[in-house]
C-alpha cells in the first residue's frame, strides 16, 4: 500500500472516530428528541426532578383538622413527627439512601417539591383524613399487641386512624435507622399488608349468603360438631348449642351452624358473595402503590374447603383494612367504599389539584339494607353478650374471631374484633387484630372500647 493511502486510511479512521464520539455526546445528552429512547427521557426527567427536590425541604403532613403530624426543620434538617410511634408505620419516611416506606414514600414527589414555593422552598403540604387524637388512642390501646387496627368512617370509607404494632418514631430516622431496623417487622404496616386468616369474623361474609337466600328461617341442630367429607369440624371449646337460629349462632360463633349453611349455599353462591366482597381481588388504594390483597376462590374447592372457609379458616385470607372495608359495607347498608387517607395535597398558595373523591369511590354493592340490618342487630347482641348484661350506650355491635394458624409446628392465633357504632345509625367501623399471638378475639375488646370512647368524645366535641 502506498504511503499516501496509508496516511489517508489512518486519518479517515481517526476522523470517523471523532465523528462517532461527537455523535455519542449528542445522543447521550438527550438534546435531540428523536435520538433519545423512552428510558433516557424518563431518566432525564427523574434526574431533573431529583435535582430540584434536593433544593427543597420536605413539606408538612397535617391531619384532618389541620394539626401538624410531620414537619421538617430547615436549619437542623430534621423531620419531626408529632405523633411519634403512633404514626410511624403510616407516614413512614423517605431516606436519601433509598429506604423509604409509608405515605412519605408514596407521595415523596409531592412532598419533596413545590414549584409555586420559590422563596420558602418547601415541598407541598399533604392533608390526611386521620384524627391525631384517635390515632394516638388507638396506638396506645394496641401497644401491647402485635398487629394492626383501623377506624373507618361508614359513609365515606375515610380512614380515621390506622396503626400497626410494633412501630417506630420517624423523628431522627436518619440517625436511628440502623437501631430501629433491628426490630423484626417494624417497618411493615400490618393493618394494610398482613394478609391473614380472618377466623370467625368471616362469618359476617357468610351471613350475607345465609340471609340473602333466607336460609336463616330454618334452625340448625348444633350438636357441637359436624362431619364434612370424613372430617369432623367442632365449635370452639367443643360447645354444643342445640337448635339455634342465625342471631344466636353469630352470638355464640357456632361453627356448626355456619358450616351447615355454607354447604347448603354451595360453592357458586359463596363465590358470588366473595366476589362482591372483593375477596381474591386486588383493591387499589391511595395508601400505597401495592394494592390490598386477599385470597379466596371457591370455584374448584371441595366441600371440606368450603366448610372451613365458612368460618374464616382454610384458604381464605384478608388484610385488616380489607376486613374493615367489608364491615363498613355492611354498616353502610351494602355500599362498600374504598378506604382512603389522603384528603388533599396543597401548594404554597393553598391550591390543590388532588381530588380525594377519586379515592372515595364505591367498591361494591355487597347486599341489601335488610340483610345488613339483620347482621348489625346480631352484632349488637354479640357485643352485649361480652358485656354480661351491662348497658351499651354507644350502641356498639361487634364480632370476634380467633383464627388458628400453625407456625413452625406451633399453634398461633389471629385474634380479631370488628365493631360498628352506633348500630342504629352506623357511623364508624373499628377493626383490631393481634397477629400470630396467643390472644383470643374477645381479648381485643379494650382496643375497641378505647377507640369507641375516643370517637364518642370527638362526636361530643363536634357537637
Amino acid at each position, binding site marked *: *500500500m502506498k*504511503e*499516501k493511502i*496509508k*496516511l489517508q*486510511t*489512518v*486519518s479517515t479512521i*481517526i*476522523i470517523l*472516530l*471523532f*465523528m462517532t*464520539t*461527537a455523535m*455519542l*455526546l*449528542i*445522543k*447521550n*445528552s*438527550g*438534546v435531540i428528541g428523536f435520538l433519545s429512547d423512552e428510558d*433516557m427521557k424518563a*431518566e*432525564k426527567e427523574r*434526574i*431533573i426532578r431529583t*435535582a430540584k427536590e434536593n433544593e427543597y425541604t420536605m413539606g408538612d403532613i397535617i391531619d384532618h383538622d389541620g394539626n401538624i403530624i410531620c414537619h421538617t426543620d430547615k436549619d437542623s434538617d430534621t423531620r419531626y413527627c408529632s405523633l411519634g410511634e403512633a404514626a410511624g408505620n403510616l407516614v413512614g419516611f423517605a431516606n436519601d439512601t433509598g429506604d423509604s416506606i409509608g405515605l412519605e414514600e408514596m407521595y415523596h414527589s409531592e412532598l419533596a417539591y413545590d414549584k409555586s414555593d420559590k422563596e420558602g422552598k418547601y415541598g407541598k403540604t399533604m392533608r390526611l383524613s386521620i384524627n391525631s387524637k384517635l390515632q394516638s388512642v388507638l396506638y396506645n390501646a394496641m401497644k401491647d399487641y402485635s398487629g394492626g387496627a383501623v377506624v373507618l368512617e361508614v359513609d365515606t370509607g375515610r380512614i380515621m386512624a390506622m396503626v400497626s404494632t410494633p412501630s417506630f418514631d420517624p423523628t431522627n430516622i436518619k440517625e436511628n435507622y440502623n437501631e430501629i431496623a433491628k426490630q423484626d417487622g417494624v417497618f411493615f404496616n400490618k393493618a394494610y399488608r398482613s394478609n391473614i386468616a380472618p377466623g370467625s369474623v368471616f362469618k359476617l361474609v357468610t351471613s350475607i349468603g345465609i340471609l340473602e337466600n333466607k336460609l336463616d328461617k330454618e334452625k340448625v341442630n348444633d350438636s357441637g360438631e359436624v362431619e364434612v367429607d370424613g372430617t369432623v369440624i367442632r365449635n370452639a371449646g367443643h360447645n354444643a348449642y342445640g337448635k339455634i337460629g342465625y342471631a344466636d349462632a353469630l352470638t355464640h360463633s357456632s361453627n356448626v351452624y355456619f358450616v351447615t349453611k355454607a354447604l347448603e349455599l354451595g360453592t357458586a353462591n359463596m363465590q358470588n358473595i366473595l366476589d362482591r366482597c372483593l375477596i381474591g381481588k386486588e383493591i387499589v388504594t391511595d395508601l400505597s402503590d401495592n394494592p390490598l390483597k386477599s385470597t379466596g376462590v371457591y370455584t374448584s374447592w371441595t366441600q371440606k374447603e368450603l366448610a372451613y372457609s365458612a368460618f374464616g379458616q382454610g384458604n381464605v385470607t384478608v388484610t385488616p383494612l380489607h376486613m374493615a372495608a367489608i364491615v363498613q359495607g355492611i354498616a353502610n347498608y351494602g355500599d362498600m367504599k374504598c378506604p382512603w387517607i389522603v384528603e388533599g395535597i396543597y401548594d404554597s398558595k393553598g391550591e390543590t389539584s388532588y381530588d380525594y373523591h377519586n379515592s372515595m369511590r364505591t367498591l361494591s354493592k355487597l347486599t341489601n339494607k335488610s340483610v345488613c340490618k339483620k347482621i348489625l342487630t346480631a352484632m349488637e347482641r354479640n357485643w352485649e353478650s361480652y358485656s354480661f348484661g351491662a348497658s351499651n350506650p354507644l350502641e356498639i355491635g361487634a364480632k370476634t374471631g380467633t383464627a388458628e394458624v400453625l407456625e413452625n409446628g406451633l399453634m398461633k392465633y389471629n385474634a380479631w374484633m370488628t365493631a360498628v357504632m352506633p348500630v342504629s345509625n352506623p357511623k364508624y367501623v373499628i377493626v383490631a387484630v393481634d397477629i400470630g399471638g396467643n390472644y383470643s378475639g374477645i381479648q381485643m375488646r379494650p382496643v375497641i372500647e378505647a377507640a369507641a370512647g375516643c370517637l364518642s368524645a370527638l362526636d361530643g366535641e363536634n357537637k
Partner: protein
Amino acid sequence: MKNVLENIKNLDNDTPVGCSRVIPFKKSVVVIIAVMLAILLYAIILGQKNFLGVFLQVTVFSILASALSGRMRNSVLPCSIILAFGVLIQLTLGMSPLKLQLDILLASVTAVIAAAVYKRNVIKLNKRIGVIIMVAAILGLTALAMISGGIGGASNWILIGGISIQATELTKLIYIICLCTVTEHNKATELKSFAASCILTLGMAGIYILQNEFGTLLLILVVFITVIFLSYSTKYTLYTLAVSLLLAFVGIGIAWLIHSSGIRGGIFGIISSAYEKILDRIVYWLNPEQDIYNKGYQYIQRKQIMLTTGLFGTETTTSVGIKESDLVLTAVMERFGVILSVLLMFLYTFSFWQQITAAHKVCDGYHKKIIAAMSVSIAGQVIVIAAYTGGALPITGLCLPFIGRGGTVMMTVFMMYGIMSAAAHRDIWDSGHGDNGIWSDTSSIESKKKEKSHIKHLKNKCTSLLSEAKNLTISKAGDNKLNDNTKEDGQNEGEN
C-alpha cells in the same frame, strides 16, 4: 500530448501545494484576536472575572505560536481556541490564574526548545545513539517515579522539591519519537527494526502496567499499530494486531489466575491490584448502580450531567472529583453545554486533519511518521475521553489536551505541537519554499537564494513544458488540417 499532460501533473506535485492552503500569518492574527474577543465576551457573560490576565497571555502566545508554527498553523489555530476554553473552564473550576499562566509559559518555552532541538535533526542523524539515549531517558524517568513514591500511591509521578512531574506523559512523548526512529529501515533491516519496535513497545507496556497506567498503555498501543502500519507492509500490521490481542488475552488470563490464587507478594500483588482496578472500572462502568456512593459514583454523575446539561449548559459545575483532569470534558459539558462540547470536538478534528494534511506535504518518511504518530496520539487521547464522557468506555485516567489540568500534560502536548511544526517544515528536509513561519529562516540569504533558484527552476520548467505543449498543439492542428484537405480532395475526386 499525453506525455506533456503527465509532465504538468508532475510539476503540480512538485509545487508546494500546501503553501497556498496555510492561512497567512496576518489573517491568522485577525482570526485569533476575533475569536479571543468572542471568548472574552462569553467569559464576561459567565461572570468570570479572573480571565483577563490569562486571556491576554493566551492571545499573545497564540499569535506567537501562529508565527512559529509555519505549515502547522492551520492545526495550531483551533488549538488556541481550545486552549482559551480550557483556561475558562479551569478558572471556573477554581484553578489559580497565576498557576495557569505559569503552566502555559512553561509549556510554551519547552515547546520552542523541543522544536529547536528537533530542527537540528540530531536523532535521525545519530539514530543508534539517539535510541539508546531515549530508552535510557524512559528508564530513568520511570525509575525516578518509582523511587519518589508518586502522588496518592500512584507510581507515575516524580516529586522533586515540591514540584510534581507526570513521568508517563514524558515517557509517552519519548516513546513516540523512539518508535518512529526504530522503525526507520531499509530492505535488509526490515525484520530487525520491526523486532526492535516490538521489544520497545513491550517494555513500555510493562512499565505502564507496573504504574497502573492503562489509559496511556491503550494510547501507545494505538500509536504503535499506526506506526507499524505506516512503516511496514500490511501483513506486519495484521500480525501485530493478532499478537497484541493474543497477548492481551494471555495477560488477562494470567492476571486472573494470580488474582484468584490469593498470592499477593511482590510482583503478584502489583498484577493482582492492576487486575482488580481494571475489573472494577469495567464492572462499575457497565453497572454503576451496584455502588452508587463509591465506585459507581463517577459513572452515575457522568450520566446525570449528560442528561441535564442541555444545549447551553448549566450554572453549576459537577461535584465529581477529578473534574479538572480525567472528568474535565464532563465538566465542560455541564458548564458549557452540548453545543460547545461538540464544537470543541470539531476543533480537535479539524486540528488533526490539518496535521495529517501537513504530514502529506512532508517528503521525508521519518518526519511524516513523527507528525502522524503524534497527531494520532493527541487525537486518540481526545477520542478516548469523549468516548468515556459519552458512556462508551470506562474511565481511563487520560487528560484532555489543552483543557485538562496538569502542567506536564500541557507541556507534553505543547512539545508535540512544537516538534510537529518543526517536522512539517520542509526547508530542512527538502529544497524548501513558501510560508514556513519562523522556521523558513527567511533572513538567511542562502535560504532566500535557494528559494529564488527553485522558483526560477520551476518557472523554466513550466515555460518549457508549455511551449512543448503549444508546439504539439500546433503540429496536431497542422495534421488535422492536412487530413481535412485530403478528405476534401477525395470528395472532389469522387464528384469528378
